[in-house]
C-alpha cells in the first residue's frame, strides 16, 4: 500500500503543480498587472493604481465594448438561426446518416481557421467567386463591395463558428423525446405552438451552450475583423492585442482581459443556473 500512496501523491502533486503554474499563476499575474502603472521603458512600474480600471469607463472604450458585444451577439444569433434548423434536420435523420452529415460539418472546422478566413477572401472580394456568379446570372450588375465591411466580418464569424453551434444543438435535439411533440400535435397544438412550448424549452440547454461556444470566441478573434473587416473597427480582441504589442500599455491590456474574463464568468454562471432550472423543468 505504501508504494501506491506514493504514486497517488506524485500524481496529485504533479497535476496540481501543472494547473497552478499554467492556470492560476498567469491569471493572478494578469490580475496583479492590471492594478500597476505602465512605465515607458520597463513596461510596468510597481506602483498601485486603479487608473486602468477607471479608463474602462472612458467613452471610447465603452463604445468599443458595446460594439464588440453587439458584433459577437449578432454573430451568435446568426449562428443560431442558421444552425438550429440544420441541427434539427440532422437530428431527425437515421443515426448512420446523421453521423456522416456531422462529419461533413466537422471537416472544414478541422482546417486552420485563418486559412479558412483567407479562403473566404477569395469568395467575397470584388472580383471573387460570389460576385462573379451573381453577375453571371444577372442578379446584380456591379460587384457588391463586401470585403472590409461589417458584413464580411459577420460572414467570417458565421463561417468559423457555425459548427460550435450545430454540435451542442444536435446533442440536445437528438435526445428530445419525439413522443412529446406527437402528443402536443394530437392534442391540437399548431406546429408553431408545439415548437415554442415543447421543442424550444427542451432544447434550451443546447441553445445556451452553443451560444456560449460562439459568443466567447467571437469576442477574442482579432484576426477575423483584421483580415475581413480592414482596420476600421476596433474590437475587444484587437484592442487587447494592441495594448500589449503596439501601445505597450500592459496594465491596460491586462485590465481589458480581466474584464473579458469577468464577462465569461458571468455567462458561465447564467449558463449553470439555466441548465439547472431547465433540468428541473424537464424532470417535472
Amino acid at each position: 500500500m505504501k508504494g501506491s500512496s506514493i504514486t497517488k501523491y506524485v500524481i496529485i502533486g504533479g497535476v496540481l503543480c501543472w494547473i497552478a503554474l499554467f492556470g492560476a499563476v498567469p491569471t493572478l499575474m494578469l490580475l496583479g498587472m492590471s492594478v500597476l502603472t505602465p512605465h515607458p521603458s520597463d513596461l510596468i512600474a510597481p506602483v498601485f493604481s486603479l487608473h486602468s480600471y477607471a479608463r474602462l469607463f472612458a467613452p471610447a472604450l465603452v463604445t468599443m465594448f458595446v460594439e464588440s458585444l453587439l458584433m459577437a451577439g449578432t454573430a451568435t444569433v446568426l449562428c443560431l438561426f442558421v444552425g438550429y434548423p440544420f441541427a434539427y434536420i440532422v437530428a431527425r435523420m437515421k443515426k448512420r446518416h446523421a453521423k456522416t452529415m456531422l462529419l461533413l460539418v466537422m471537416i472544414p472546422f478541422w482546417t486552420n481557421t485563418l486559412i479558412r478566413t483567407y479562403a473566404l477572401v477569395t469568395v467575397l472580394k470584388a472580383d471573387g467567386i460570389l460576385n462573379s456568379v451573381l453577375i453571371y446570372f444577372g442578379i446584380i450588375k456591379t460587384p457588391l463591395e463586401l470585403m472590409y465591411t461589417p458584413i464580411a466580418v459577420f460572414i467570417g464569424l458565421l463561417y468559423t463558428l457555425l459548427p460550435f453551434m450545430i454540435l451542442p444543438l444536435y446533442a440536445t435535439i437528438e435526445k428530445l423525446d419525439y413522443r412529446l411533440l406527437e402528443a402536443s400535435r394530437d392534442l391540437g397544438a399548431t406546429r408553431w405552438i408545439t415548437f415554442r412550448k415543447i421543442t424550444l424549452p427542451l432544447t434550451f440547454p443546447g441553445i445556451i451552450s452553443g451560444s456560449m461556444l460562439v459568443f466567447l470566441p467571437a469576442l477574442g478573434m482579432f484576426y477575423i475583423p483584421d483580415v475581413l473587416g480592414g482596420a476600421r473597427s476596433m474590437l475587444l480582441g484587437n484592442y487587447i492585442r494592441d495594448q500589449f504589442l503596439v501601445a505597450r500599455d500592459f496594465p491596460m491590456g491586462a485590465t481589458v482581459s480581466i474584464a473579458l474574463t469577468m464577462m465569461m464568468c458571468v455567462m458561465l454562471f447564467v449558463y449553470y443556473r439555466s441548465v439547472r432550472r431547465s433540468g428541473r423543468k424537464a424532470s417535472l
Partner: protein
Amino acid sequence: MNRFVKAVYSGLVYCFLYLPLVTMGVYSFNASKYSLSWKGFTLKWYGKLLTNASLLDAAMHSLTIAVVSATVACAIGTLTAFLLHQYRFVGRKALFASIFVMMMSPDIVIGISLLVLFLAAGLTLGFGTLLMGHVTLCTPFVAATVYSRFRDFDASVVEAAKDLGASERQVLRYIVLPMAGPAVLAGWLLSFTMSLDDVIVSFFTTGPTYEVLPLRIYSMVRLGIKPDVNALSVLMILVTITAVVLSWRLIKEKT
C-alpha cells in the same frame, strides 16, 4: 418541413461551408497569378511552393508543434482525469472548476496571461514557450474527454483488481489506460487539430525563431498573398482531413 426544403437547406449550409475551400483549391491550379479569371490549369504554384523554404518551414513547425503538444497534453490530461476520477482529496472541486474555467477562457486571455508569465520568467519566446502554450490550451479538453469516459466505466472492475492485489500502478497500467484508450486517442486528435487551428495563443507565445504557418499567412495577408499559399493551404487541408477521417474510423471501430 418537407423533404425538399430539408435537402435544399442542408445543401445550402454545406455549400456555405465548402465553397471557400473549393474555390481556394481551384485557384491553386489557376495559371493566372492574380487568381481572378481562369487562365488554364497549372501545377506551377505547387512547384514554387517546393522552393519556398520559409513557408515550408512554417508548415513543418506547425505539424511538429501539433504532434508534440497533443502528445504532452494527452499525458497530462489523462493523468488529470485519472486523478479526478480515482482519488478524493482536498481541492478536488477546485481542480474541477479550474479545468472548466481554463476550457472556457477566451484564447486571447490564455495567450496574454502566458505571455506575461513567460516574460516574467525571462524565457525567450520560441519552440518551448509555444509548446507550453499549446499544451495549456489542449490539456483541459483532453482531461474532460477522458474523464467523461472514466465516468462511464464499471467501477467494480477496478475494485475487483484491487481486491485481487493489484497495486495502483498496475491498475493504471492494465485496466484504466486500456479502457481509456479510445478517449485518449480522441483527446489526442482533438489536441492535434486544436493546435493546428490555433492562431491566437500562438500569436502571443511564439517568437521570430519559431514561426508557425497560420502566423506566417497572417503576416502575408496584409502584403498581398501569392498563389503558392493557396497550394500550401490545400496541402494542409488534405493533411488534416486525412488524419481526422483515418482516426475517426479508428475510434469508431474501437468503441
